[in-house]
Every structure is written in structure tokens, then in C-alpha cells.
């Protein structure tokens, strides 16, 4: 019998994050470390350093002059923000061996990136201090599905077929046949990675934000971003309908509904570049 715990335990290649992320996280949390210490850790991984510079010079920020060193990027973008971007761009590599049979990986990541970018845009309209945290939460909100697709492909296919034939929501079908859904699995995986609690909850509760009990901005934003992304049909993680919206989440975000069309124009502007730095080999 499969449970979320067993799925996460058996996904061995996913058991822990790259050590560079752990070290970066320690340095960022340590009040004694300087920007130079953090830049030093990032520079040890040339690939990571190059990806971060690419992001720093993209439409994500639109800085007027070119940012050509990691030290400068740490100064203008911020240490926590850079740590979160490092996580976003390294995590995809961990899923390199996922099977393409159930859902195309390209389509899966398109949906995830669009959701991450949308969450980031909503957070920036709210003037949240660290918008990259929302990008990470949006990017990872459906990763539980990847584990389900790789460990239990037959049941996953059955769930997909059922949802298509009944025009039903996939996460509800998952719950019906497995007793849990992809959000449970994703939340558990992120908890094992020791990702901050806000992000864990954003992933674990993105289909039922009110169930956390206390209000959290991260989950409300990911919930709404997922709905917008599914409505626009940018890629898909398997879902064919727009998830049901929790009006509380929209109320908590407290933005006028007129942000919808500027958000979508902004999404169009940032999405292609985000695909390039998250999925470099697809570009």
C-alpha cells in the first residue's frame, strides 16, 4: 500500500538537496557572514553562478546596467533572494530522471514555471519583501506529481484517464483512488528537504488554503497563481480543468481584480526568460 511517506522515502535520488544549497542557507542565516562569504560559496559552482547572473540581467529585474559579478548580484538582489533563486534553478536537475510516459516533462515544467512567475508577480504587486520565495513555492507546487508518476505510473495513468473521461479535477480523483493527493506528497518532500515552513505549507495546501487554520500569504498566492496558470493553459501537470477557487485566499491577497490583465502581460514578458534559466537544455 502506497502512502505519501513511503513514496518520499523510496524516491532516493530526491532524498536531500545539493550540499551547496545547504551551505548557502547556513551562510544566509548566519548574521556574521558577509556578502563576500555568500558570493564565495556561489562562485564555487560555476554553473550556478552563471545561471544566477543570467537571472540578474533578465526581465525579472530590469536593472539599468549590466550585473557582471556575483558580489554585485548579492548586493543588488539580496542574500535570501539569491539563495531562493539558487534553489529554484538547482532543483530541476534533481528531477532529470523522471519518466515522460504519464505527462510530458516539458509541459509539466512549463506549468510549474508559469505558476512560479505568476506567484512572483502577485507578490510584487503586494510589495512583499522577498518575491523569490513565492517563485520557488509556485515552481515546486506540483512536484508531488512527479514522484507519483515515477513510482506508481499505472495508478497515475488511471487517475488521468478518469479525470479526462469525467471532466473532473485530477487532485480529487487522486484522493479518491489513492487516499491522498500530490500536494500531500510534495509537502512531505519539501519538509524532508528542510525548506522553510511557509513554502512547505504553500505546496501542501495549495488546493485547500483555508485548511491550514491560520492565514498565510504564501499559500494564498500560490493557490491563485495555480488557478490563473491553469486557466491560461500554459503547460500542464495533468490537470485539464481550472481548480476550484477558495474565495478566502483571494480576499486575503487583497489586490484589486484589475491586476489580472497587467499580471498576464507581465507573465508574457518574464515567462520565456524564466524557461531559459530554469530549463537551459530545452532552450
Amino acid at each position: 500500500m502506497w502512502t505519501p511517506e513511503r513514496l518520499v522515502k523510496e524516491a532516493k535520488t530526491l532524498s536531500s538537496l545539493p550540499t551547496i544549497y545547504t551551505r548557502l542557507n547556513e551562510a544566509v542565516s548566519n548574521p556574521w557572514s558577509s556578502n563576500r562569504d555568500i558570493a564565495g560559496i556561489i562562485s564555487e559552482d560555476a554553473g550556478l553562478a552563471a545561471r544566477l547572473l543570467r537571472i540578474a540581467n533578465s526581465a525579472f529585474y530590469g536593472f539599468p546596467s549590466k550585473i557582471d559579478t556575483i558580489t554585485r548580484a548579492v548586493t543588488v538582489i539580496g542574500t535570501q533572494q539569491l539563495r531562493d533563486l539558487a534553489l529554484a534553478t538547482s532543483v530541476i536537475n534533481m528531477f532529470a530522471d523522471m519518466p515522460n510516459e504519464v505527462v510530458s516533462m516539458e509541459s509539466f515544467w512549463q506549468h510549474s514555471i508559469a505558476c512560479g512567475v505568476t506567484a512572483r508577480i502577485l507578490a510584487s504587486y503586494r510589495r512583499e519583501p522577498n518575491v523569490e520565495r513565492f517563485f520557488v513555492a509556485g515552481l515546486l507546487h506540483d512536484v508531488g506529481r512527479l514522484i507519483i508518476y515515477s513510482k506508481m505510473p499505472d495508478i497515475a495513468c488511471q487517475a488521468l484517464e478518469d479525470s479526462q473521461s469525467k471532466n473532473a479535477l485530477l487532485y480529487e480523483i487522486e484522493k479518491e483512488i489513492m487516499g491522498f493527493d500530490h500536494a500531500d506528497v510534495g509537502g512531505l518532500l519539501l519538509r524532508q528537504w528542510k525548506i522553510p515552513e511557509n513554502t512547505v505549507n504553500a505546496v501542501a495546501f495549495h488546493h485547500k488554503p483555508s485548511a491550514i487554520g491560520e492565514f498565510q500569504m504564501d499559500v494564498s498566492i500560490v493557490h491563485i497563481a495555480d488557478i490563473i496558470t491553469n486557466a491560461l493553459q500554459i503547460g500542464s501537470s495533468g490537470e485539464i480543468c481550472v481548480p476550484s477557487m477558495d474565495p478566502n485566499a483571494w480576499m486575503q491577497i487583497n489586490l484589486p481584480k484589475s491586476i489580472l490583465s497587467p499580471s498576464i502581460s507581465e507573465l508574457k514578458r518574464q515567462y520565456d526568460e524564466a524557461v531559459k534559466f530554469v530549463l537551459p537544455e530545452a532552450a
Partner: protein
Amino acid sequence: MGVINLEDLQPGMVLAEDARHLNGRILLNSGTELTEKHIHIFKSWGLMEASIEGITKEEINAKSIEHISPEILKEAEEEIRRRFCHTELTHPFVADLFQLCVRLFTEHKARSLKNVDSRETG
């Protein structure tokens, strides 16, 4: 009077209420007739909507789809309605998202039809 999105504002429209920035600052008083420059300033200040005399949002929406053939519009609405069947369409935000998806669907459709036409004639 109706609250109109920034992108649908046009010179000559008259403000029904003061145009305010999110922080409450008044950018332009009610009764002012908008010019190209005002709209540009709204854009740079990040204003997203304004209340306008003598027009409603529904009229703007109707205008934006009036050039679309009824068959394509019907097809779009049916398809988008199927995808939105699990969420509450009466919620104002969902209703706007729905309208936007219908608009994008018809534009996409119109573009692909145009491509077929140009391939046939060219």
C-alpha cells in the same frame, strides 16, 4: 459610470471619481477629460483602473468581442466553461478570468484561421 481597466482607457473619457494611487494620493480629479498624457502617467504610476462617466465595464467587454463571429464566440465560451466547471463563476475575480480566457481563445482562433487563409491564397 463604470470602473475601467487601464488598458481600455482612451483619451476623451471623463473621470467619474478621483483617480487615486494605491497609497491614496489623488493623481487626477473627477470630471477631468483624459488625455494621452494622463493615461501615460497612470501607467508609470502603476494605476490599474479608473472610474469613467457614461460607460460600463460590460459595454467595454461587449465592444472588445463585437467583431468576433458568433460561432467562434460560442465555441470559445463552451470550451472555457467546461474548463471552469469546478470553480464559482459568479465570483468577480473568476468572472474576469473567464472573460479574459474567452478573449484569448477567440484571438488565438482568429489568428490560426488567418494563417490558414494566407496559406491558401499565398
